[in-house]
């Protein structure tokens, strides 16, 4: 959350996150360079530059796999939410590691070519009609290009400039990048690799990423269908029992049209806001009240429950909703108020409800 442009809003968590990441990359590359030669096919010469290219290439693949696992894991289990906090730095580092891999490859294969190395990279292999020998390099180039675009636009400046929905849609290109990377590895390294370890790792990673996304998607669908209350004739939706809203937590209610509303409890009071964070559209209802503010579980953006406004000096606003009680039931007005509209909370003591 920032009110002026800063390249990176560093804090202790981000520094720690990045240091752990960097240490992990250095350790992986070191171990790979020490261990991989013992698994290598000794019928072919082993070159240091190619070994380093493989080290950084496999590292980038594993990093991208982990990045794509973080989102669904955080949806399925809250304990993974801290990994989500600084995922953009993870992505930028992955792009850097992939770039080092590409540099080694270009330096090794095309440095002594009479043509420009980058022209040679794109034009040397045109065997598009067969699997063995297919120009797999193009998939790698496409993936790296996407990762570069995502890294460059990862800053909050671009998020605000493009608006969260457009930015999120743009950054969904990472899925295309992953598909390109899998094909790059399958048509490239796996074609010549005689050791089964790499194939097993790539297959397991692909299945894990796809499986986790499918599982998280099913859970989202179930959340949309399972808790939908009935709409009364007067247009109010039966959101649930007031007693079901835990202190400092939210009851997330799907409303007709597909969006969700988060009804938070702050002591004896209940208030309702949009479930969509203004920053990256994070699920506010999975966060909690901290200092009286709804706090997004993804990046900690905060909004007052009473009016949906971020506390000063911040300026983000989200929509609020009117609530009323009918006995033990909480009723929700389906018409959202404009973002930042104050709404009187309703009194609904948990014990009495």
């Amino acid at each position, binding site marked *: 959350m920032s009110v002026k442009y800063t390249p990176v809003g560093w804090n202790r968590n981000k520094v720690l996150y990045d240091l752990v990441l960097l240490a992990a990359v250095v350790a992986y590359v070191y171990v790979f360079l020490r261990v991989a030669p013992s698994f290598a096919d*000794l*019928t072919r*010469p082993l070159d240091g530059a190619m070994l380093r290219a493989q080290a950084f290439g496999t590292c980038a693949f594993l990093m991208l796999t982990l990045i794509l696992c973080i989102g669904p894991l955080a949806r399925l289990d809250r304990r993974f939410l801290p990994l989500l906090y600084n995922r953009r730095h993870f992505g930028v580092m992955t792009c850097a590691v992939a770039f080092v891999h590409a540099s080694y490859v270009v330096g090794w294969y095309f440095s002594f070519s009479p043509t420009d190395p980058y022209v040679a990279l794109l034009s040397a292999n045109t065997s598009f009609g067969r*699997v*063995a020998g297919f120009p797999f390099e193009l998939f790698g180039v496409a993936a790296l290009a996407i990762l570069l675009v995502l890294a460059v636009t990862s800053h909050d400046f671009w998020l605000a400039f493009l608006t969260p*929905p457009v930015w*999120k*849609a743009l950054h*969904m290109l990472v*899925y295309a990048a992953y*598909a390109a990377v*899998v*094909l790059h590895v*399958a*048509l490239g390294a*796996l*074609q010549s690799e*005689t050791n089964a370890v790499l*194939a097993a790792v*790539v*297959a397991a990673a*692909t*299945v894990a990423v*796809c*499986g986790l*996304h*499918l599982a998280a*998607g099913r859970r*989202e*669908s179930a959340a949309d269908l399972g808790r939908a209350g009935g709409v009364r004739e007067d247009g109010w939706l039966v959101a649930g029992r007031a007693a079901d809203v835990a202190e400092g937590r939210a009851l997330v209610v799907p409303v007709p*049209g*597909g*969006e969700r509303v988060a009804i938070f409890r702050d002591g004896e009071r209940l208030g309702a806001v949009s479930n*969509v964070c203004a920053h990256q*559209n*994070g*699920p506010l209802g999975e966060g909690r009240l901290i200092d009286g503010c709804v706090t997004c579980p993804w990046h900690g953006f905060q909004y007052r429950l009473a009016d949906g406004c971020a506390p000063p000096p911040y300026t983000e606003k989200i929509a609020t909703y009117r609530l009323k009680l009918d006995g033990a039931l909480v009723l929700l007005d389906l018409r959202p108020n404009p973002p930042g509209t104050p709404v009187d909370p309703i009194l609904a003591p948990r014990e009495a409800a």
Partner: protein
Amino acid sequence: MQRPLRTAHARIWTVLAVLLPAALLAVLAIRQTVPESRPAVQLGVGAADEGSGR
């Protein structure tokens, strides 16, 4: 997350969950493997030495 993005996520991963493993399996299935009867070649041994029968 907004509904259109949730829907897009679900559709994209439904397609990728079928296509990616299938493509990977297909490529692995038809890749050319080294024959098991291939004689081992020791690095650093010249072609002349190999052919000389020594």
